């Protein structure tokens, strides 16, 4: 195996347009003169923007790159350039060998054909020879755990089955460069684990991996992480450094965006307090107080206050129907009180032992026994749970723990 780069981005610029493409001949009639009267300035015409600017990096066999960035940072454009779906407007993109993507699994599936037929079609689309697919067919079916379903039309597959099959095909395409998008969020947990194990195995076998994800724990395993923002490379560094910078910028943006404005009526706002200070980020396991500000025109007697904490990682959406990861409810503890005019409810949490990540809070107040009317506020607060500074764990939750050695004499004999 040579050590020459399998992927090389050399001063790559990619231009995209916000305006819809001309799709009818009639539109062409006025698009042409408009284009002539509106020449490119600094390489851009009106409505155009640089999806990627001056991007440089190269990857060797067996190297993995993670890509982070907010929406619109240019992550998809980068993948499409790698995949030769986009061509750069300036600079050069070089790839060596077979580039296979896990982007939009199953894009080539034909719904009325059965699983077996689709394996051969999808494999061919990914660049495999029919002979090669025949040789690997049993392994593909086994990996997908679909032994009994290969004669069923793919239209009758569940989305998980379709994703499993298409991942299994891609997994057996022996790519030199593998592009991994968010798609791995599908399938059940055991399948996801196997996917990640497989990706790690192929990387060790010399495949170059490029993965785009909003799931930071996925990117932690990459050799390097590229932080993109507004089409520009902000940082290309070790995962810890690049991800840390990205999360810090994101938190800053949330504070600035004033996304959570107060309203005049109902639940006016919800604050997260640490001590007496409002906070937007808090270490996992730290004590905290949520303060619910209200302003009611009509009295609410025996109020029941509920706070639902919703994690921003979409994988947590599947856990509960309401998508909340944790819920705080006042139950009957505010009985006897009538809320009217402006005021606050406080709820103290001894230890905010939540998975790290971004949260949004849904707040609701209703009168006890009233099952119809409740005063609600979605996205009343956003905050971030940070990994405790001294923690070196990479798990979602750090449990408070005390370790000691047990002497043999302390163990009771039966």
């Amino acid at each position: 195996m040579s050590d020459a780069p399998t992927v090389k981005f050399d001063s790559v610029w990619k231009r995209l347009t916000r305006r819809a493409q001309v799709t009818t001949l009639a539109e062409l009639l006025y698009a042409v003169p408009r284009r002539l009267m509106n020449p490119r300035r600094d390489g851009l015409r009106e409505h155009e923007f640089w999806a990627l600017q001056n991007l440089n990096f190269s990857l060797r066999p067996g190297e993995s790159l993670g890509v982070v960035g907010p929406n619109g940072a240019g992550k998809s454009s980068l993948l499409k350039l790698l995949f030769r779906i986009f061509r750069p407007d300036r600079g050069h993109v070089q790839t060596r060998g077979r580039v296979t993507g896990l982007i939009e699994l199953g894009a080539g599936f034909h719904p009325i054909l059965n699983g077996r037929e689709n394996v051969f079609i999808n494999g061919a689309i990914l660049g495999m020879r029919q002979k090669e697919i025949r040789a690997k067919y049993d392994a593909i079916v086994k990996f997908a755990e679909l032994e009994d379903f290969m004669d069923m039309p793919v239209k009758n597959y569940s989305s998980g089955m379709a994703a499993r099959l298409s991942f299994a095909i891609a997994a057996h395409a022996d790519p030199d460069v593998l592009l991994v998008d968010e798609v791995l969020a599908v399938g059940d947990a055991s399948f996801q684990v196997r996917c990640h194990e497989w990706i790690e195995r192929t990387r060790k076998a010399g495949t170059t991996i490029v993965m785009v994800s909003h799931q930071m724990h996925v990117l932690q395993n990459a050799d390097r992480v590229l932080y993109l923002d507004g089409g520009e490379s902000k940082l290309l560094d070790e995962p810890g450094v690049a991800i840390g910078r990205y999360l810090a910028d994101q938190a800053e943006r949330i504070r600035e965006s004033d996304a959570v404005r107060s309203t005049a009526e109902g639940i006016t706002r919800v604050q997260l307090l640490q001590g007496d200070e409002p906070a937007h980020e808090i270490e996992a396991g730290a004590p905290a107080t949520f303060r619910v500000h209200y302003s009611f025109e009509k009295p609410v007697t025996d109020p029941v206050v509920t706070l639902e904490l919703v994690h921003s990682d979409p994988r947590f959406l599947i856990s509960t129907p309401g998508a909340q990861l944790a819920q705080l409810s006042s139950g009957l503890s505010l009985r006897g009180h009538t809320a009217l005019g402006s005021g606050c409810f406080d709820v103290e949490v001894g230890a905010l032992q939540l998975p790290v990540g971004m949260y949004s809070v849904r707040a609701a107040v209703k009168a006890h026994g009233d099952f119809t009317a409740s005063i609600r506020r979605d996205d009343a607060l956003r905050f971030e749970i940070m990994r405790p500074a001294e923690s070196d764990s990479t798990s979602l939750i750090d449990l408070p723990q005390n370790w000691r050695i047990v002497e043999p004499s302390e163990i009771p004999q039966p």
Partner: protein
Amino acid sequence: MNAARDLRELFSYRELIAVLALREIRSRYKYTFLGAGWALALPVGLMLVFTLVFSHVAPLDTGAVPYPVFAYIGLLPWQLHAGILTGSARSLTDNRNLVTKVYFAREVMPLSRVLSALFDFAIASTVLAALMAWYRIVPGPGAWLVPVVLLVQLAFGVGLGLVVSAANLLYRDVQYVLQVVIMIWMFGSAVVYPLPETGRLAIISWINPVTPILNAYRGLLLGGQTGFSPQFYVAAAVSATLLVGGWLLFRRLERRFGELA
């Protein structure tokens, strides 16, 4: 030498062309009672209708050749031609999810439609053989040249198919315009009646390559023709030019398919 490299790349995708054509054929005829037999329906149906019109309503002189054979030998390659054009035109737009998600030589899409049109052509050809047997027509001595005619027809169809597939991705009008063009084209191509060989209309067989191509099939298989007419050589030259020019145009536009689809 980029063209040579692109041709090599296209050649490496030959299996994909066949696989996609097979996908199209399978999905088209799956869950149908007649299956691939439906490939016969259109040419045979048209042949019956035109036989009714030109043998009984407005009788037409087709010389020694019985009219049903005369019509079918025109309809068969014409359907191939129309099938290649309509299939190619939609090939990229129908597969937008592939074009915007996966890389492969884009020519694969129109070419796979050409292949599936050829499949229908092969099936429908059996009816021609049956008709000729029924009327006891022995293929002429020039019949061995028929593959050459088919090659010229394919060069013409592929060249035009590449152009319309790319054009339809740019402007969706193309597929609708094409339907009208194909209908008018059929009546200007000696498909179900002979075009006059003298007079003002004779010019059609010089400027419309389909006419000499259809006449060549007829002359070689049914008549005693053993060579090609001058018009056919013109058609062959036009076809070759269109094939090369169409492909060069396709390559130029192909760079932006990912953004346009």
